[in-house]
């Protein structure tokens, strides 16, 4: 599939999507609300994206961006799905019922960035202790004891 075909296909699923082809792979920016149906379609539809190899979040100081790297073990074409979420109350729907690996990756994003994943079966802290305050990977996180400014 060429990038044009993918774009066409995704536009039919999520009309509001915007595209960015400057990087190595096709980047697709969608609305957080449109993410879940799109993902479900990408997994089961004609793209058959069965391999979610990276889920992460980036703090752009004005907003958070969820980044999903998708690929397929059959045709090996990778695409990147992004969704901007609000920094104060970041909420997005989980994809861990589509790809099981997302369960742990989303738990990590939850504790490091504070993104709330709705319908996640077990959204607890995975790495940090339960009473940890703050979201360490956000840019404004301050820890005067453990972070040494050089």
């Amino acid at each position, binding site marked *: 599939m060429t990038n044009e075909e993918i774009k066409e296909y995704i536009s039919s699923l999520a009309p509001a999507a915007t595209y960015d082809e400057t*990087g190595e792979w096709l980047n697709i920016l969608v609305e957080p609300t449109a993410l879940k149906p799109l993902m479900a379609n990408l997994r089961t539809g004609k793209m058959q994206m069965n391999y979610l*190899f990276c889920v992460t979040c*980036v703090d752009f100081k004005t907003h958070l961006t969820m980044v999903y*790297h998708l690929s397929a073990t059959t045709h090996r074409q990778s695409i990147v799905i992004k969704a901007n979420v609000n920094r104060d109350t970041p909420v997005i729907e989980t994809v861990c019922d589509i790809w099981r690996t997302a369960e742990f990756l989303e738990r990590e994003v939850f504790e490091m960035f504070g993104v709330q994943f709705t319908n996640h079966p077990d959204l607890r802290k995975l790495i940090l202790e339960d009473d940890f305050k703050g979201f360490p990977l956000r840019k404004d996180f301050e820890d005067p004891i453990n972070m040494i400014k050089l």
Partner: protein
Amino acid sequence: MYNQTEIIKDTSELGADGELVINMGPQHPATHGVLHLVVTLNGETIKKIEPHLGFIHRSIEKMCESLTYRQFIYVTSRMDYLSSHINNLGCALLVEKGMQIEVPERAKYIRVILSELTRIASHELWLGAMAMDLGAFTPFFYAFREREMITDIMEDTCGARLTMNYIVPGGLMYDLHPDFQKKVKAFITQFKSKVTEYEDLVTNNIIFQSRTKGVGILSAEDAISYGCTGPVARASGVSCDIRKIYPYEVYDKVEFDEVIETAGDSFARYIVRVKEMNQSIRIIEQLIDNIPEGDFVGKTKNVLKLPKGEFYSRVETARGEFGVYVVSEGGTTPHRIKFRSPGFSNLSVLNHIAAGGMIGDLMASMGTLDLVIPDIDR
């Protein structure tokens, strides 16, 4: 003299249906580090395993945000310390890709040879540690004898035995040690003569086979869905070798087979790793005599600045696909860096494959997942 009912209450904290919750780890002989598993048992049968991570979490991703593109490579040695060289390579590839740095051919060959040596060393350690999990202590020492030869080679060439940091963006830190080729050849001869020992002691052993065959079965669909990579996924019949799919460095010039088993049980994972060692030997044999002359490091600018944008590079470590995702704002340090560690995804499958088995099966499943805890926690 004692009140029996009181002791029952204190001893076992029996849950509903007589469940027994035990904490395996953070200090437990089988978790090889500081992994904490909360295991719910019903008699000897495991009902649920819940990993608790973070005992060696150093927030390497946050640290890297304040390190330059030259400096952040050395931190990655501390993640998967058993394949530190390959981790370094992944990061260097990302910087080279982002800045279009030309790497000399000689450096590429050396990088691949050292990667494969690292892979063998990692698998050797895994083999010993896994046999130890299953109660056989002796293979550990035999495996370490061969591994010691590799660490000696690493020490000669890279100056360190575990956290090499031999790779810099654009090439290598310094040239090969003059004895390198001789020593690698000596290692290959030694390894080939000793590999039958593992077969006698471990592979063909009836107890080992009955402990691992049919234990911890992972289907191909689940392997993909859980994001498993490396030998874990290949044992389930999923082709996922980055060296074959997206060849980097000189992997497209060498002949080797991607080892794939279909059973998906612990024994298949074991066999995949043992066969992979032989494939690594095959790669080294093809390259060791053909290292081209030339520079070992390409021309790079003094200050490395990645252009604005996003970059992703991946390599095949001993445990699977290691990915580096960098968001750059154009400065000397990354804006956000994310390491896709193979161990993290491989760990998430543990509950799926070990629940329903016995405590002894948990050791076989966990051992063959080859978990390195600093890699998982990062």
